[in-house]
């Protein structure tokens, strides 16, 4: 697994153990700009833990993470978001008592420069910024077909809409790399199909690099160009969907040894 020179996100040999349990050990990843990478593995393989390590929720015990030249290890989650790494959550974490519009507008806050005093004094700079935030967030909501539900509370949205809103919110931070944690969970076939298109289109439109955790193999194999497989916190395989499907180690991890033997 050689590291490409132009990689935007470089993860080198990160590990973390909770007590005696090695959740992630010596995990390395490299994403090129524009990559659409899948991260799969059986339940408990440590996929979400990798996300938590990347976004600063947990501090890796060893290893380094580099985002376009910025070392991320040791930064607080908000600093990592500012560096251009954004994420969604496996169990949706929207702001339930804020409106859909406010959820997205909130994530724009990161890229603003106005001061608190400016906000209270309603300076022209603040007003211009606020207008721009308004425009940008509406644009995002239109892309995600949520514009009509703008004023509703986030908690009143149906499940699929909540998932899409979370992606929209993550995009509002203007990231370079987007981490999606099981975006299709709980969606029906129709919604999954739309999601597939959506992921591709936002990648092109916002010039993103996407790392995707997903259990729906159909979706992963279809949408991702590259896949990394994790089992017991260790990367066991990496390659194109075709290679992964035929990799004996992967089959073993998912189906057990007996099938291979």
């Amino acid at each position, binding site marked *: 697994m050689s590291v490409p020179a132009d990689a935007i996100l470089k993860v080198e040999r990160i590990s973390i153990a909770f007590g005696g349990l090695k959740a992630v050990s010596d995990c390395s990843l490299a994403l090129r700009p524009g990559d659409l990478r899948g991260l799969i593995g059986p339940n408990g393989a440590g996929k979400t833990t990798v996300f938590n390590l990347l976004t600063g929720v947990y501090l890796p015990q060893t290893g380094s993470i580099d985002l376009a030249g910025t070392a991320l290890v040791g930064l607080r989650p908000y600093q990592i978001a500012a560096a251009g790494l954004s994420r969604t959550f496996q169990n949706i974490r929207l702001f339930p008592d*804020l409106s859909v519009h406010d959820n997205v507008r909130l994530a724009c806050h990161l890229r603003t420069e106005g001061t608190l005093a400016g906000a*209270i004094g309603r300076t022209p700079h603040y007003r211009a910024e606020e207008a721009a935030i308004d425009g940008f967030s509406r644009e995002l909501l239109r892309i995600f077909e949520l514009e009509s539900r703008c004023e509703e509370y986030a908690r009143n949205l149906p499940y699929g809409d909540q998932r899409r809103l979370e992606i929209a919110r993550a995009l509002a931070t203007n990231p370079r790399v987007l981490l999606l944690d099981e975006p299709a969970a709980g969606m029906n076939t129709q919604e999954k199909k739309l999601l597939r298109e959506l992921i591709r289109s936002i990648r092109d439109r916002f010039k993103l690099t996407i790392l995707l955790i997903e259990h729906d193999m159909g979706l992963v194999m279809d949408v991702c160009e590259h896949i990394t497989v994790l089992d017991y916190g260790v990367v066991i395989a990496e390659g194109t969907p075709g290679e992964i499907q035929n990799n004996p180690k992967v089959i073993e991890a998912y189906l057990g040894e007996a099938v291979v033997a």
Partner: protein
Amino acid sequence: MSYFTTRTPALKPPVAKTVLRSLAPVVIGIGVAALLQFVLRPLAGDYTSKIALDVCTNIILAVSLTIVNGFTGQFSIGHAAFMAVGAYTSACIVYYGSYYIYGELGNAAAQGGMVSTMLDGRTAPLLTGGDLLFAASLVIGGVFAAGCGYVVGLPSLRLKGDYLAIVTLGFGEIVRVLVTKTPAVIYTAEEIGTTPTYQLPLHLGGAIGFSGLPFYTSLFWVGLFASITLIVAYRLKRSTYGRAFLSIREDEIAAEAMGINTTRYKVQAFVIAAFFAGIAGGLFAHTSGVQLNPGELGFMKSFEIIILVVLGGLGSISGATIAAIVLTTVPELLREPPSVWPYGIIGAAVIGGIIAVFSRRKLAPFLVLGGLCIGWELLRFGAKQAGINLAEYRMVLYALMLILMMILRPAGLMGLGEIWDLRIGGKKSASAGKGKR
């Protein structure tokens, strides 16, 4: 250039308009204050004016606590301590400052202007040096309190929920005990002359209290600062910073992941809230009939402010304001409960009418208000029959109200919403009930 200002060019409005917009809190504040002081004060009696004054002070306290407890969801139960810091700072400046400037005990009736008087029919210049001293002392008191807010806000780096509440409570108690330890106020001009200046701020009267303060607080000052607090809180809530504050209350981890520096905003919320609490403290200290002592500003006072915030709805500025108005007036009414006929009925009809016009529900407001009127009459009748002075049971009624409110309407009167949100067809207000946490 920020990401967003590069997307759309900055507006270039006329300078005058910009300045006016920035200063709107003060300009509107002065307007409201003048209205209260020079129109309402002569029309209303002494008693009504005094209640209006208490209402305004409580609005400042409730709305400022809303910024911490309501917006960022950090549970502070030491708000009275910030009030105490402001009160003592301001008291110290005005009391000893009066000696330095006028060479005698501070006296609002002699040194204050027309803006700082609650006396009827007094004539004086509109604004005097004494008033400016008082106003400056309020702001300095606010700044000192804000400094304390910064110090207390810092532990929130590490602490969450209940633990933070405990620290704010501990801070309040420490402030109270430290004030109790201070030596007595110096009462003679000679002694003040001989005491080094830097020692004067230590003479705060200890447990007995800081007596001899001039009564500068008038409807003008409370009206001014209540308006400023309200407008600032409103602008804050509607700004990108306000959304950042609210996101911390909703889900701290998600907020942090979306690039919100939660620590910084929590501390900022504490600082802003403490600033206004400090101003309210200064106003409280110079109110006639108030004896400033440490026991007055203990955590029972904090609890009273929390009650206002919670009953109004955590996070609702208008809710906190309504709660401050109602909970300050009702105990006064309970002293000698007046009949709802005719003013109560007229008031209820007007309020019900206004709500019915804006809300989708047409009948409900009238039913609720009618029920309140009947309940009030029953209460009055019962108390008269049993020979009970209802004002004595004020705190019992508060406590029952608090418990019932938490059980029946957990989000408080308004929830997170504001009264002007009601006109969105009642959708928001109807769903504002149960918050998921």
